């Protein structure tokens, strides 16, 4: 019944990973440790590929839910790949890892050491 020559196993695995059923299992696997496969170790290459795409679609669905992208992105693989590539190539870190520099009165540059966080002093007696 199966035509081994024409069956694209990896493309089909990607299609499966986008299905709501597997997305629910993936979310639960992350949150409550639900098992995705019968084997917990010694994964095959196609299982790893499937896991990567579960994560890929989970991120894409989050972006749709947040309104970052329209649902049309899920229309085909080309849209999905293009949006994800664009998103990751334009990704900026949330917090700058290099310290900001600002020239002082003498003209020399000094490093600003302002913290990203505000620490409140604990009330006396604590």
């Amino acid at each position: 019944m199966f035509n081994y020559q024409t069956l694209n196993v990896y493309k089909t695995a990607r299609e499966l990973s986008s299905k709501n059923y597997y997305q629910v299992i993936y979310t639960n696997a992350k949150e409550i440790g639900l098992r995705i496969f019968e084997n917990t170790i010694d994964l095959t290459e196609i299982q790893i590929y499937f896991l990567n795409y579960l994560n890929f679609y989970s991120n894409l669905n989050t972006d749709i839910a947040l309104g970052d992208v329209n649902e049309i992105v899920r229309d085909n693989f080309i849209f999905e790949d293009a949006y994800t590539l664009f998103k990751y190539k334009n990704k900026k870190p949330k917090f700058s890892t290099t310290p900001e520099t600002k020239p002082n009165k003498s003209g020399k540059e000094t490093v600003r050491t302002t913290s990203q966080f505000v620490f409140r002093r604990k009330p006396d007696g604590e």
Partner: protein
Amino acid sequence: MSVEEEIQEKLEEVKKQLNLSLVEQLLTNNTHEFEVEGVKYRVTKPTFAQKKQINTIKMKTLNKLLRDPECLFEKDIIALLKAKGIDIPDMENQLKVLETQKEKLQMSLGEALAEQKTESNLHVFKEEIEKIETKQQTISFQKAFYLENTIENQVAVEIYCYTSYLITEKAEEESGQDIKWAKPWKDYDDFTNSSEQLINSVTFYATIISQGNVSV
């Protein structure tokens, strides 16, 4: 839609569902059970000992091919092809150029999607990307055809066949839930003399289960 077209569409849908269910089964575990000519078989991801055996076969096959003056390495075949006017490095360059073009289009399409542009705008990019992918596939098929008989390729084919032979087991006895598994063939020659249907099924499943775990 005509009746023939409707039947064709339904058949396509059934085929798609069967493919989905087959791949679903392949994903479930690192072992896969299947039936050929009424007999139950299974393939399991190769163990360390099996990988060592496969490596030995790789060496033996390579040594055998090296002694055969008719067999050539990829680089030698590329040189011969160049003399006949077939330029493999040029094909590789074309593939690189196409990949760069594709990535540029993907970035533009990604930006259009992020900016939530109209559907017609998006489809213009999609069609361009599809054209590039078709060109990439044509060049890749041509390249694969010309390099099919290299020593490297023959070693890879032999490894996949031997791996299939090594990791396949046949159900001997079934008592309730328990199945006794045994080697289906006396030796490798016995495997190569099996029916084409069995060899096709076994190599297909074995290749998927062992992919990435056997160094070709």
